[in-house]
């Protein structure tokens, strides 16, 4: 969907800039090349002449990406962004917030592209006109974790809502993120699906990140809902175990955790760097970057499963869930 010719010509321009003028960018490229082995960019430069005049729209610019803490804190973005930055000669400023805050920044026109994981909030964002060109990016899943002695007896349950109901019935301590993040949104949806309105001494909202919430839960022998990636990255330091699996390990589909990416609508926020946002979306949904996502591991385990490249694209990824050209709100 993104024209190859533009990619090539901006790369060309960047090579020229890097050699002639911009020491900063040159050093960044060099570091990135050393770090990631992305020497192909240099190899490509040698045979190129300055044929890219007029196509230099993005080189040297900064892309502001607001994203959720789970993509940033797991180290994924730092691991893959070097290649994009070298390819276009740009800088990606990744601002990690909860999904709610990430979308709010974009709504205010303070971001160019958003990468979040709460489809309901993304749909609202699109319906209000703030986001365009949404793509499914990748997924992992949520797991319900808790103390090994499992006072509510949920271990091995096949139903996430059943497990939450059991926790509520037992009055076992449950730690909630309580921060309008994607994980918190999922948790509220689960309680709603379970038909339980959580409250009382056993239900605690921490307002910290996922890692912090896991520590709080660990300290109190409590249950919590975690994305698998963060839990894997923290598992060796805490005493909690996965008691209800998500769909990656044959758990219920309701615990799936899909990440989407959208450009901020330049028709609403004229200052949004739409060109670069679309270059980024084009890059991160390309087979190369999707491979980089699937090969990113922590403690020997894959954290994110790419889903942007498909022989049979799911058309619903481009529009708010349930939208069709026949509906009134089109």
């Amino acid at each position, binding site marked *: 969907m993104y024209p190859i010719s533009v990619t090539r010509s901006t790369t060309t321009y960047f090579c020229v800039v890097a050699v002639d003028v911009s020491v900063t960018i040159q050093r960044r490229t060099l570091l990135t090349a050393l*770090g990631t082995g992305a020497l192909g960019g240099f190899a490509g430069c040698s045979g190129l002449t300055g044929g890219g005049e007029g196509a230099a729209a993005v080189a040297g610019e900064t892309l502001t990406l607001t994203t959720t803490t789970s993509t940033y804190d797991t180290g994924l973005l730092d691991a893959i962004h070097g290649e994009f930055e070298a390819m276009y000669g740009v800088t990606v400023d990744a*601002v990690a917030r909860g999904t709610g805050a990430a979308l709010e920044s974009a709504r205010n026109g303070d971001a160019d592209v958003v990468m979040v994981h709460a489809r309901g909030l993304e749909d609202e964002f699109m319906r209000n006109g703030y986001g365009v060109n949404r793509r499914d990016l990748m997924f992992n899943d949520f797991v319900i974790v808790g103390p090994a002695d499992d006072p509510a007896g949920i271990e091995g349950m096949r139903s996430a809502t059943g497990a939450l109901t059991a926790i509520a019935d037992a009055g076992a301590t449950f730690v909630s993120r309580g921060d309008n993040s994607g994980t918190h949104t999922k948790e509220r949806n689960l309680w709603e699906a379970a038909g339980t309105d959580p409250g009382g001494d056993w239900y605690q909202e921490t307002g910290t990140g996922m890692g912090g919430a896991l520590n709080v839960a660990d300290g109190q022998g409590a249950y919590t809902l975690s994305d698998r990636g963060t839990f894997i990255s923290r598992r060796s330091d805490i005493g909690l175990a996965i008691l209800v699996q998500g769909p990656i390990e044959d758990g219920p589909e309701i615990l799936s955790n899909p990440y989407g990416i959208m450009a901020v609508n330049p028709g609403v926020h004229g200052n949004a760097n739409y060109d670069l946002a679309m270059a980024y979306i084009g890059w991160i949904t390309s087979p190369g970057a999707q491979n980089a996502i699937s090969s990113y591991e922590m403690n020997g385990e894959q954290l994110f499963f790419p889903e942007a490249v498909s022989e049979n694209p799911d058309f619903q990824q481009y529009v708010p869930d349930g939208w069709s050209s026949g509906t009134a709100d089109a």
Partner: protein
Amino acid sequence: MPIDPAVQSLQLLVDLPFREGYVRSIVSVSLYVSLIAVALSTLFSIPVAVVLGFNDFPGKGLVKAVINTGMGFPSVVVGLVVLFAVSNQGPLGSLNLLFTKQAMILSQFVLATPPITAISLAAITGVDEDVRDAARALGGTRLDAALVVLKEARYGIATAVLAGFGRAISEVGSVLIVGGNITGADGISKTRTLTTAIQLEARQGQYGTAMVLGGVLLALVLLINAIVVRFGDWGVQR
């Protein structure tokens, strides 16, 4: 600050908590933002304190009350106010300051100015009236008198600057909101300070590394204090 490839490859093998250059870059961002903010605050605050200390005018009590209240501004509220100002939708939106060091300097300026002004004012007011009178009696202008009083009040003013610096470098609320806690993919800080790095580690539950960074911050504040105190003593000995 080039990264030694050998160090980098070593880090692939050994699980070091931080990447090469990371801590150095967040220290330099912290110092850059806080030192500039405090310098600007000082340039603004001392003339204000002198004017307030040397003049009586209607509403002076109100001005002092506002300044004293400002010492208690929660940094997170200042961050929100600056966010609204520099956001794309705000009055300064066209300057594209959000998620930059300039926005962080702006918010720390707002935070550091009240303590520097209030403590400087107290120091200036505390200088004996006789000093002021003597300066005028010896034929000095009002400016001469002000300079003499400032010299007498220098310890108090140094304390004021240190208090402002302490407020700036230790606050996390506003720089997190307006700075965005950004590092590049190469691990070099753009708007990440020691405090926001500590907050990030704590958010991830990495309390150990958070403590290490806390130690760095403490050492830095101690160092700055020692320098300022030494500077003051040196002034006396001369």
